[in-house]
């Protein structure tokens, strides 16, 4: 088979030993790459995940590219990282892009597994077949941006691409991420903390080999067509304003979370809109490797924050901005820079600080507990100070926030759990719960926890294809279909912003076959998507996940939205239950949300049917 390098590297950090494993054709066909490979290998490598402390040497850290990495495939240079998440305690997963995946594939590797724990800080260098664990003592404590520069300098070649953790990952902050090429992150689920727990500071890779493609001429022709489509209306907003275009769209619909999801509109939305940002702050638009869209808008802050530079997307903007009551792009640009350099996920960070602000305003957190910080909504200096302390686990406040919103609210108690906006421990992203109800179902059943990237079910709400202020049984099918397609997208791995340019799933199959030479139909690839999703769910079931965990936080049911456009919107519990039943029915799972033996056997997941599956 082509496309794949055909092998992966295993690094035993405890013993400092490496070995090589083969990627079999059956693995390729059944699990595609990326998400699928991650689900397969995490399930196999952690047979008893409930017993594993995610920050112990027993956890594994798995990196996979997909079949397309290293080729000209449209927005197809991405890699994914997996572990049991220290934030959620379940299937932990994140995807990043840039050039890293291309270099790794070109070096001759589809993936890397890290096991154990290095005795002292180290980083992995991969230079084609030459693999070396190197000392990283001098890099410990450095920001992600400094780490990249220092490693390139010491390896003597700028063409090494570096993925690293910042001080937050080293200190095992549960929101810590992994950063490559400054602005690209494996953002969610705290995988940077797993790297930190293993004393692994970075992975630096340089590849010089050809990536073999089955039908290279056919691929180049197909990509010319796809790239052309990428200049059309389906991706226009990403090209012009980037994802921040959503600020005003969501504000108008009453689904822009503000003040820790107490409201769905923001009075300063204009000031932090994508339109305003382009006019006043965007200094450069950049693209990931092989991407014809280019959505990444790099900002430069002004005035008091002059010199701060960061790549600001919708999620970062909405959570660190409106969700914390901040209507100032200079502060937001600085806040994102702190997150990116010190190494935490902007979504989770903005969410947990929004929660702390609500606690503070309600008198649940005292000024003593915030280490003297006046943590009111809208206080920009307080946001930046709280962020730094979160990243460095400094003081009472920093140590509390570093745990993520679920744990922090359990520690504080006093009713703060009611407005801790998460699902399964993962902080809710910037889609309001009550005014986008199909989206909420999608977030709540996601394999990662509150997640907009597992099904994209917000789209039917935002586009007005359903009544977004209520739920019914039929929404289950929408989420189910979305999840299966997104599982393919995340396994190939391609950027979700291209989803609108593929005419049908047959084109995903066509792309797969052109690159790999393995025959694949649209039906087969969708089946693979379903298989992958079920496999990740089986891992979660082993971690104790069932129906009880597939619910949004209490605020969704208990606090009607106050905003005029969506006044009184709230999720009715019986409607939600009905929609959830509808979802399980499509999935072929029991009413308690456990995959049935029958469904698992149908998907060829025989071991899982035995270990996890229930009778209907």
């Amino acid at each position: 088979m082509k496309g794949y390098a055909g092998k992966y590297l295993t690094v035993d950090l405890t013993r400092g030993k490496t070995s090589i494993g083969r990627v079999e054709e059956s693995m390729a066909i059944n699990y595609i790459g990326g998400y699928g490979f991650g689900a397969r290998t995490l399930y196999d490598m952690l047979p008893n995940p409930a017993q594993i402390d995610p920050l112990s040497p027993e956890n594994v850290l798995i990196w996979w590219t997909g079949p397309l990495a290293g080729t000209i495939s449209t927005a197809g240079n991405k890699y994914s990282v997996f572990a049991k998440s220290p934030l959620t305690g379940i299937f932990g997963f994140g995807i990043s892009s840039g050039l890293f995946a291309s270099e790794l594939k070109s070096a001759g590797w589809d993936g890397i597994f890290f096991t154990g724990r290095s005795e002292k800080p180290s980083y992995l260098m991969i230079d084609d077949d030459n693999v070396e664990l190197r000392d990283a003592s001098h890099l410990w404590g450095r920001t992600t941006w400094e780490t990249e520069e220092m490693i390139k300098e010491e390896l003597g070649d700028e063409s090494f691409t570096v993925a690293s953790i910042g001080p937050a990952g080293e200190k095992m902050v549960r929101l810590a991420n992994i950063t490559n090429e400054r602005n690209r992150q494996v953002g969610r689920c705290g995988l940077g903390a797993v790297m930190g727990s293993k004393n692994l500071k970075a992975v630096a890779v340089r590849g010089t080999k050809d990536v073999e493609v089955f039908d290279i001429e056919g691929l180049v022709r197909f990509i010319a067509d796809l790239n052309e489509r990428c200049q059309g209306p389906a991706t226009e907003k990403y090209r012009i304003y980037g994802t921040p275009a959503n600020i005003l769209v969501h504000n108008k619909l009453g689904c822009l979370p503000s003040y820790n999801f107490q409201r769905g509109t923001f009075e300063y939305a204009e000031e932090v809109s994508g339109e305003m940002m382009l006019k006043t702050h965007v200094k450069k638009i950049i693209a990931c490797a092989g991407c014809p869209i280019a959505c990444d808008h790099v900002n430069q802050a002004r005035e008091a924050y002059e010199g701060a530079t960061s790549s600001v997307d919708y999620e970062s903007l909405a959570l660190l901005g409106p969700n914390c009551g901040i209507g100032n792009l200079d502060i937001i640009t600085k806040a994102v820079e702190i997150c990116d350099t010190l190494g935490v996920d902007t979504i989770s960070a903005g969410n947990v600080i929004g929660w702390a602000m609500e606690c503070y305003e309600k008198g649940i957190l005292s000024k003593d507990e915030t280490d003297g910080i006046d943590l009111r909504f809208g206080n920009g200096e307080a946001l930046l100070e709280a962020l730094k302390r979160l990243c460095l686990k400094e003081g009472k406040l920093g140590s509390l926030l570093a745990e993520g919103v679920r744990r922090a609210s359990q520690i504080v108690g006093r009713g703060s759990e009611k407005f801790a906006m998460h699902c399964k421990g993962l902080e809710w992203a910037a889609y309001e719960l009550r005014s986008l109800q199909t989206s909420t179902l999608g977030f709540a059943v996601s394999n990662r926890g509150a997640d907009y990237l597992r099904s994209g079910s917000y789209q039917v709400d935002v586009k007005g294809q359903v009544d977004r202020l209520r739920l019914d049984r039929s929404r289950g099918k929408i989420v189910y279909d979305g999840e299966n397609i997104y599982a393919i997208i995340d396994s190939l791995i391609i950027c979700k912003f291209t989803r609108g340019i593929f005419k049908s799933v047959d084109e995903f199959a066509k792309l797969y076959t052109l690159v790999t030479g393995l025959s694949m139909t649209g039906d087969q690839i969708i089946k693979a998507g379903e298989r992958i999703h079920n496999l990740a769910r089986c891992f979660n079931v082993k971690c104790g996940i069932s129906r009880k965990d597939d619910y949004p936080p209490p605020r969704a049911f208990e606090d009607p939205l106050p905003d005029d456009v969506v006044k009184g919107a709230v999720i009715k519990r019986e409607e939600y239950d009905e929609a959830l039943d509808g979802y399980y029915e499509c999935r072929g799972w029991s009413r308690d949300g456990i995959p049935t033996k029958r469904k698992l056997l149908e998907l060829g997941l025989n071991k899982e049917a035995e270990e996890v599956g229930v009778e209907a």
Partner: protein
Amino acid sequence: MESRLRKVIVCDPDKCNGCRICEYICSYASEGVMNIKKSRMRVVRIEPFLNVAVTCRKCEDPVCVKACPRDALKQKPNGVIVVDENKCNGCGWCVETCPFGVIRLHLDKRKAIICDYCEKNGFPQCVEYCPKEALKYVTLDQAARESSKKAVKLLMEETVIGSK
């Protein structure tokens, strides 16, 4: 061909976003493979705001040709520099002397490789595939004219057109 009619590949740094599609397509167009390390085009990124793609400029009296101790490099009348693989011994003197750093030694063959403007395809494929039209295949005079227009537009739009 008169040298003033020579067309070169120029890059608009405002439009170039560092996607490297030119490098991928170049490796295919010139070698039939996917490997950006075999590209004749080089995408330069200088953090945090600068991207530009550079390739052979078809210099007048090119220093690389003069520098080659084995006379392996020749410039054709249309400006394209060709490498005689039989003469080239991979010493890399041309790589070092090129002021734009756009000559490389082939990873496997260890011979100098220089952009040939896709002579066999008839049109530079990097320009063809650039999704943002940042790359253009024009004479230097045309490129300069575009720059003038852009500058005038920027400077004059508000004062002349915008004042209505």
